């Protein structure tokens, strides 16, 4: 009993021991936070990686593609009704993206995915990641215009508000200012002229905005960044989406410091338009209806600000603006009516130039539905890649997709499956002479969704204790099993005389998304392991600290040790006091560290934002990541491991001092000075 009694009494009364407790708590805190953030990261990546693909992916192992995909899908569904929920073909190829609304020189390579909507949304989380159609069950490449308008309006209004925050964004100003400095002097002069030609009302309005800026921002801008002010004015000048879209494009162009000449030309007509809108806004302000563009206000109340009937007004406005900002290459920035449904695209939310993210994670869009893009690609589906095969076509952006995997979102454009199949030369080829199908239609991949009930049942079965202890064999992973089944079905189809000719020279491979994304997820998991190991090594400092503190305590308590032994305490008993003391130090440190870490992780984003606001110090640069928030996931088993580790650290740190204490001769201990 005396061991327990003295252990806790020392713990209560020795301040040095609390230093050890704090050291352990800090290490535990550090581990909890780092592991939780890394787990959150891995989890987010895993979810996102799965979001891009279906549970199981079938492909033909070549760019040539896989024939008879609809037949294969039908066969999969027929043979595996309990395991497979749905399946959909998917084409993946590569091409060149041009965004003429930025500038004629804006080009980038992208991967182009052909998907069937809404079928593809039943296979993956793709539908939930759509900006404008995320809230409807059946997203398509031809959404109801009304729905689209409402969402665009909401987005843009939000963007306008965000633009005000952007105006206070020091980083953005730095970039713009640098851009301004890099401009050739004649162009700067032209901008100054443009700035000088603003109407008095515009100047007044701008002045109001100007006065609201913090003094240091005004200093930074004064007399130099007319481009910034102009762009800012573009945003602040109008809450009307019909005007904001092209103005935003102008802003984008200004932001990217491209084609300044063109910007100037385009800017002129907008000034008149803005003046008119100013008048309307002032009128609306006087009527008390100006501030919020009335959401869902489709009744067309004729207040001069909101649309008459949305569709008509948008058509009218866009057509006018198209004329005003006409380009010699394309019909204009915003094409209306949009390209036909087969010529629509969904762009990844993260394509360079389409959006940028402020330091606080706000997404500022530079393009959206209504903008046209041009895609150029080599039709890899063509058997023989000779001659001038380049395919080039215009598509209207209809939505944007977010998978949260930056390499996907920054690099992918989605087109209707049949469209991409056709331009990628993967459609059916008819023999001119016989009129029969010489080559069946093909797809790059088939994405398969495994029934969640089947996957969960398999997971439950494998998580039973008997399986974990190795007493019962582990069942095959649900996805791997379905992949094997599909592989079998695929091979049966391939060997079927009816399809054998079409499959000639085509391999078939079915594998789970985990297998596909092994490299991506595996790398993050390796990083997580590395971080955990690094922090665990750093945490070993706590063991050394506990050792030093306990060694000091043992020296201080030498006489006590002599007394305890003279009272009949054994060497083991004395050792247990200090080991228990160390273990308790680890336990209390673990509890404090876990509680602190848990709370920190829970509020990590708020804390990060507060630190950023107060000290201007941002650890998590949201411009680099596609996650709005720092991901964090507290896992109970990790916490338990950390707590056990902390207790072991306490025991290890106190082990040598405990041995020293136990070996003390009572006579020497009593005489110790």
């Amino acid at each position, binding site marked *: *009993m*005396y061991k*327990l*009694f*003295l252990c806790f*009494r*020392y713990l*209560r*009364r*020795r301040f040095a021991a609390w230093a050890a407790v704090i050291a352990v708590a800090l290490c535990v805190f550090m581990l909890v936070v780092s592991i939780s953030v890394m787990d959150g990261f891995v989890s987010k990546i895993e979810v996102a990686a799965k979001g891009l693909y279906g549970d199981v992916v079938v492909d033909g192992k070549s760019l040539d593609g896989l024939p008879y995909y609809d037949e294969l899908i039908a066969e999969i569904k027929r043979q595996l009704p309990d395991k497979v929920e749905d399946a959909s073909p998917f084409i993946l190829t590569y091409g060149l993206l041009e965004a003429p609304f930025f500038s004629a020189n804006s080009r980038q390579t992208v991967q182009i995915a052909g998907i069937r909507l809404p079928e593809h949304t039943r296979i993956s989380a793709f539908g939930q990641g759509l900006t404008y159609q995320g809230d409807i069950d059946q997203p398509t490449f031809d959404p109801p215009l009304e729905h689209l308008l409402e969402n665009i309006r909401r987005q843009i209004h939000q963007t306008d508000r965000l633009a005000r925050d952007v105006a206070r964004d020091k980083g953005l100003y730095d970039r713009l200012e640098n851009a301004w400095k890099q401009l050739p002097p004649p162009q700067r002069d032209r901008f100054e002229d443009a700035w000088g030609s603003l109407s008095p009302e515009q100047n007044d309005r701008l002045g109001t905005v100007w006065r609201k800026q913090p003094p240091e921002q005004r200093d930074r801008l004064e007399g130099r960044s007319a481009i910034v002010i102009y762009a800012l004015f573009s945003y602040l000048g109008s809450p009307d989406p019909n005007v904001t879209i092209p103005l935003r494009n102008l802003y984008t162009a200004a932001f990217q410091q491209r084609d300044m000449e063109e910007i100037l030309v385009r800017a002129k007509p907008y000034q008149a338009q803005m003046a008119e809108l100013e008048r309307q806004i002032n009128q609306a302000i006087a009527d008390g209806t100006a501030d919020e563009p009335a959401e869902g206000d489709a009744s067309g109340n004729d207040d001069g600000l909101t649309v008459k009937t949305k569709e008509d007004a948008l058509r009218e406005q866009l057509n006018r603006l198209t004329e005003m900002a006409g380009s010699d290459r394309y019909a204009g920035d915003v094409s209306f009516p949009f390209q036909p449904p087969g010529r629509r695209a969904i762009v990844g939310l993260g394509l360079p130039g389409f959006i940028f993210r402020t330091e606080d994670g706000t997404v500022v869009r530079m393009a959206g539905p209504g903008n046209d893009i041009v895609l150029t690609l080599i039709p890899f589906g063509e058997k023989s890649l000779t001659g001038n095969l380049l395919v080039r076509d215009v598509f209207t952006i209809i939505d944007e997709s977010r998978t949260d995997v930056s390499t996907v979102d920054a690099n992918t454009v989605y087109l209707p499956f049949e469209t991409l199949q056709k331009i990628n030369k993967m459609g059916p080829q008819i023999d001119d002479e016989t009129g029969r199908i010489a080559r069946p239609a093909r797809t790059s991949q088939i994405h398969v969704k495994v029934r969640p009930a089947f996957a969960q049942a398999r997971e439950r079965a494998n998580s039973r204790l008997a399986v974990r202890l190795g007493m019962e064999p582990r069942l095959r992973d649900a996805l791997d099993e379905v992949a094997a089944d599909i592989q079998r079905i695929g091979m049966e189809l391939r060997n079927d005389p009816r399809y054998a000719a079409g499959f000639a020279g085509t391999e078939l491979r079915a594998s789970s998304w985990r297998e596909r994304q092994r490299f991506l997820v595996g790398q993050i998991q390796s990083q997580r392991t590395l971080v955990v190991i690094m922090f665990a090594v750093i945490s070993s400092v706590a063991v050394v600290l506990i050792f030093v503190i306990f060694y000091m305590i043992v020296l201080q308590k030498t*006489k*006590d040790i*002599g*007394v*305890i*032994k*003279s*009272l*009949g*305490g*054994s*060497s083991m*008993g004395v050792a247990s006091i200090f080991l228990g003391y160390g273990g308790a130090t680890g336990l209390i440190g673990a509890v404090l560290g876990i509680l602190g870490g848990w709370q920190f992780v829970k509020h990590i984003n708020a804390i990060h934002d507060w630190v950023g606001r107060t000290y201007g110090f941002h650890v998590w640069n949201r411009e680099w990541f596609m996650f709005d928030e720092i991901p964090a996931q507290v896992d109970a088993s990790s916490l338990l491991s950390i707590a056990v580790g902390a207790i072991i650290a306490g025991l290890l740190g106190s082990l040598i001092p405990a041995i020293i204490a136990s070996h003390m*001769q*009572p*006579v020497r201990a*009593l005489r110790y000075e």
Partner: protein
Amino acid sequence: MRFTIGKKINNPAPTNAAVVVRDLHKTYHLGKTTLPVLRGVSLSVRKGQFVAMVGASGSGKSTLLHLIGLLDKPDEGEITLDSRAAATLSSGQRHRMRCRDIGFVFQFYHLLSELNVLENVALAAMVDHSTLGWLAQRGQQRKRAATLLDRLGLGGRLSHKPKELSGGERQRVAIARALINQPKILLADEPTGNLDSNTGRQILDVLRKTNRELGQTILMVTHDATIAEQADHVLHLLDGRLVE
């Protein structure tokens, strides 16, 4: 009572002997220097006797007391406590004997500063109990400690910390701690050495009273001849040997 000085006793220990020491040798090694402290001490103390050991500083009094109290082991010689030869005791038996049969009172009290008066006394009882055993008897043991402290005039000081007590009070707490397990032998190493003469006398009275009322065998080391005179017998140690 028979003292055999510097000579080996071959006769078996008398049955009424509480402590029998035969030809005890102890040498301390301090680096390259060897320091013989006891050079063949033999003695026998009857149960219930109050024996004082006097001698100059360094004569080996405390060392002899520590050896008898099983806090140290002799280089040569035998110690028999309550008819049990110390050399034959296992480590566990030595711990148990120190806990149950021997009580120590030190010159510098050696109270644990983190514990209050009652806890310091109860600690000695705790050592003899397992956790469950102590929890079962906790109330009873604490009551016993409180009664003992009350008898020693510390009834109102139970929750005081050692630093809040005077030297005499601290020593009385140390005596209470030594007596809580009702040991057969009480070993007191200069119990009055750190106290003024008046307080020292009071402590001595406590020891004498204990000896009288409880029949405890007491071996007291002192360098003060007037204190030693209060004992039933006085042993003189000189350069590691007992002298008449």
